[in-house]
């Protein structure tokens, strides 16, 4: 291989009348030319940059008349049109697909299918055998989040218990208040837990007014 010969310094030099050597020389020349072109282009870009900038954004000319402004506007219009065309194409495809689907008689196709035959050919046991039931069950249990359900239930039970304790305490408060009121011959208009009379709406700060 010529490549090996080129990279291996101990290899003997190839014959100049060989066609592959000519190709290698052409490749080397092309590579050198490309490298030179890149260097020249970079230098040219650096040299031409101020002139290009001057041409695109000429001084003493309002920005709206700059060639750069015009070019940017053209680019924006192009983008917009390409977007519109893409949307138009998408709509057209949607219409065509809908038309094709409406032309298909699914009932007729299904009627032609021999379901019994298809089922008879299915090896259900093989399919079931491929399913990892244990992993599936584990996944279902993980998805159900049993601890959260138990926690919610426990919270509900605790709330019920606390509400019960509070209600008992309130009823005891009222009982004692009534007894004390009777002993002290005191009349109270509303007992908080009395249910014989309809409840009278009270302002929020009724208990806080006055000392």
């Amino acid at each position, binding site marked *: 291989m010529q490549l090996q010969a080129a990279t291996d310094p101990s290899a003997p030099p190839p014959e100049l009348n060989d066609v592959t050597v000519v190709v290698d020389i052409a490749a080397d020349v092309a590579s050198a030319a490309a490298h030179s072109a890149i260097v020249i282009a970079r230098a040219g870009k650096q040299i031409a940059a101020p002139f290009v900038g001057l041409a695109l954004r000429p001084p003493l000319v309002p920005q709206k008349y700059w060639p750069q402004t015009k070019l940017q506007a053209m680019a924006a219009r192009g983008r917009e049109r390409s977007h519109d065309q893409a949307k138009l194409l998408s709509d057209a495809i949607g219409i065509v697909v809908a038309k094709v689907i409406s032309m298909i008689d699914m009932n007729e196709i299904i009627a032609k299918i021999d379901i019994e035959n298809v089922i008879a050919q299915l090896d259900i046991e093989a399919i079931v055998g491929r399913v990892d039931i244990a992993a599936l069950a584990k996944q279902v249990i993980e998805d159900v989040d049993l601890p959260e359900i138990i926690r919610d239930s426990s919270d509900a039970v605790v709330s019920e218990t606390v509400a019960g*304790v509070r209600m008992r*305490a309130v009823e*005891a408060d009222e009982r004692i208040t009534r007894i*004390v009121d009777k002993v002290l011959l005191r009349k109270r208009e509303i007992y*908080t837990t009395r249910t014989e009379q309809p409840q009278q709406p009270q302002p*929020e700060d009724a208990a*806080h007014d006055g000392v």
Partner: protein
Amino acid sequence: MTASEGALHVPARARRFQGERAGIVTRFIAAATDLAVVIGLIAGLYAVIFGVSFILRPRHPHWPELGWSLPAALIIVSVPYLALSWATTGRTRGNALLGTRVVNRRGRRVGLLLATVRAVFCVVFPVGLFWCVVSSKKRSVQDVLLRTSVIYDWEHGVPE
């Protein structure tokens, strides 16, 4: 937090007395619960002191003498506990359990100074609680002196 918002979380049978002053049974159970909490905190404090002493002097660990230190620990632990609870959420653990809240004369949360004074009063003169039995407005001695109230408030949220 308005009464209507709170009513969403309160059972229907309990709504009619929300905002009313709490009676002796409710307040006594709340106070007993707070006492249990304070005893637990003091026990923890003593355990920490003993643990530190054991680490420093494993052969002769120091156990705090209950005689003189207990009243001091009671005040040191209970006053900040009560004051901070009332000044921040309006409820101690006992208040939260029984669904009550301490408010000032405007029905709002008490400030830190008022809460501290009330806490000192409650710790130094706990018997003052029983004045709410004969008080027509269900106020303890501390409530009368400091113009505070303990009301039923089953709402879970932090009062304003």
